[in-house]
């Protein structure tokens, strides 16, 4: 991912300007982890936040009986870690398959939020979305497929006029839909292949809103 893609992605993720996103980018570090790498141990003092770009991190608790229990997991478009203050980590944070994250010290994030209100606004939206996902989990509610979320996001961004100009950065669109860049890219390519959208350097245009709406499942 290039620096400009990263900034576009962060701007979309935090619903902020490219300038504000550049400040987040400067305060974060892109890190890649392998399967079963451990980001934090249960009982450690947690002092970092992670923004997942690709892959998945699992929160695993070792119970009194020594058994491993999966508490939750975080994937693309989600933020987790110590927030708003440093705190004791309640579970091991273990990588599943591969993980790419933007890593930021909790203290640095807190400072950024004090300086840039819009980043705080974006953060509240991200945490709100994660809270809703948690409620969905508790209620066993069936939600849209990953492709369906990408298409819903595309319709939302295109609005009534049916165009997005300049065309969206796919990685950013995918993160907004809480899925991987690969899934976002596959979903958008399928639309282009089927003549449902048209893309060039200037804009993305929806050619058939009906067909696109039918794919939001």
């Amino acid at each position: 991912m290039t620096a400009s893609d990263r900034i576009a992605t962060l701007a979309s993720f935090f619903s902020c300007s490219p300038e504000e996103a550049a400040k987040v980018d400067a305060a974060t570090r892109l890190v890649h982890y392998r399967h079963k790498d451990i980001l934090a141990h249960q009982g450690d003092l947690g002092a970092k936040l992670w923004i997942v770009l690709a892959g998945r991190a699992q929160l695993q608790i070792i119970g009194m009986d020594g058994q491993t229990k999966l508490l939750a997991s975080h994937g693309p478009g989600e933020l987790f870690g110590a927030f708003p203050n440093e705190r004791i980590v309640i579970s091991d944070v273990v990588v599943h398959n591969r993980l790419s994250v933007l890593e930021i010290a909790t203290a640095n994030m807190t400072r950024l939020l004090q300086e840039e209100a819009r980043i705080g606004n974006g953060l509240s939206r991200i945490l709100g979305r994660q809270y809703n996902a948690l409620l969905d989990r508790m209620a066993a509610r069936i939600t849209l497929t990953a492709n369906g979320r990408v298409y819903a996001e595309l319709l939302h961004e295109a609005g009534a006029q049916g165009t997005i100009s300049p065309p969206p950065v796919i990685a950013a669109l995918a993160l907004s839909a809480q899925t991987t860049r690969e899934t976002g890219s596959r979903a958008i390519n399928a639309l282009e292949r089927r003549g449902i959208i048209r893309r060039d350097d200037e804009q993305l245009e929806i050619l058939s809103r009906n067909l696109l709406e039918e794919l939001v499942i």
Partner: protein
Amino acid sequence: MTSLTQILSLARAGNPARAWALFHSSGWDVREDDPKALTLKGRLLKDQAKASEGTERARLYGLAAEAYAAAVEPGRDSYPLINAAALALLGGKPERSGALAKETLALIDGDPDQGENAYWRAATRAEALLLLGEEAAARAALADGIAKLPYAWEDHAATLGQFELILAEQGSDAAWLDRHRPPPSLYFSGIIGLDAADPAIREEVDAIIRRERPGFGFGALAAGADILIAEALHRAGAELHITLPYPVDRFRELSVTPYGERWGPRFDALLEAAIRVEVLTELPDEAERSLAIAVELADLVAMGQCVRNAGVLRSRPKALTITGQGDQPRRQHQVWSDTGHDQYAIPVSRVAGHHSIAEASGTEIRELAAIFWVDNLDPDALSLLPDNARDFRPAGDAHYRIMTDLAELQSTGRRLLQHDGNSRLGFVIDIMDTQAPAASLLEQAADLSRAASGEAILTDFKSAMALTMQSVGQTIEEIGELQTASGPLPLWSIA
């Protein structure tokens, strides 16, 4: 009130009765001024017609035709109009069909914006011409539409399905449609221990791919046969859909680089080129799976994806494997053979020292099985099951049963749903100790059943694909996603 989108989802998931009931109970059936409601009404009646026979089928097709016809706003939208025309023919009203087809042609000719896009505009014209008995012109119009959007395979497949119905009703030969079918899907596999420098192997793989022209390849990327075939598919322009039995880096160190460092960059390049990569792995409370059983599951998932993709695109699934001379077929390859789909085998000499992975399973006690989970099991329902299928184990308010015969899943589910259409059923197919399955696997099965709302059984992606290889006459569709402790689980409905 249930939305039209939710009702359409149910219909797509193979629940026509439930979709129709919700359409009624939500009051959509009386919304005769709402084109979207009327279009869906036509679709739901068409689904019911397809599931019926004889005069009832014709009656339902006729009702579907009138629902579509009523959805046509004056001077607008050729989509419901052409559907009304086709369904009128299937409903035994050829004159009405002809009149509606003429109206469709006039609409298209008079309005350059008709049709959702270039393909659908041409395909709609082709369908109207076909309904009017002008088959040569219909063939030309369809070819023109496909040339405009040659990779809109899903749309081509939808047209082919509709044309098959029309041609059957007209008593005409449908063989000409075959030249417009999307490319076949190919499941690929084979041994690691082959002589990769042998040009004859590559030539034989290339010859099969040239002849069969697959557009999609499904398999893993181990050193040897997998990579050779995947490279040939990639050179030929086919999409690669990769399923790995382990996390990427672990698979690379187990099945790629031990056979020569040269395989590593080839694996990386193919992984990068793949349009989709699925990774199967153990859950946190499980030990790593042994190779043979992990590969068996990954093979079944890849085969299921291949068969499903071909089904969705109305083309054909095929298999290509490079085997060691004299090797017994792997168990999963027998599953493919049993389906009767085409398969090609290239027998080659094994390189000295390389053995079949089936010989290396060691002390693995886990096996491929399903956990079938039922919330609030009615004890009376058990009487509907064979004696040997009643050993459900209690788990809180729910019950579950471990099945090693995957075919049994369908019959058990069908019987329980017959007894109580509101039963909440879910299952996962995975690798497990059948005497003591991992707690996280049981939890997944329980999560799936909690999300079920009757008339269908819910499962995850890998289980749905594995079951596809065993399934006959069932609708297996993705319906959404479920949040679980291990992340969002793609949710599939079996009806």
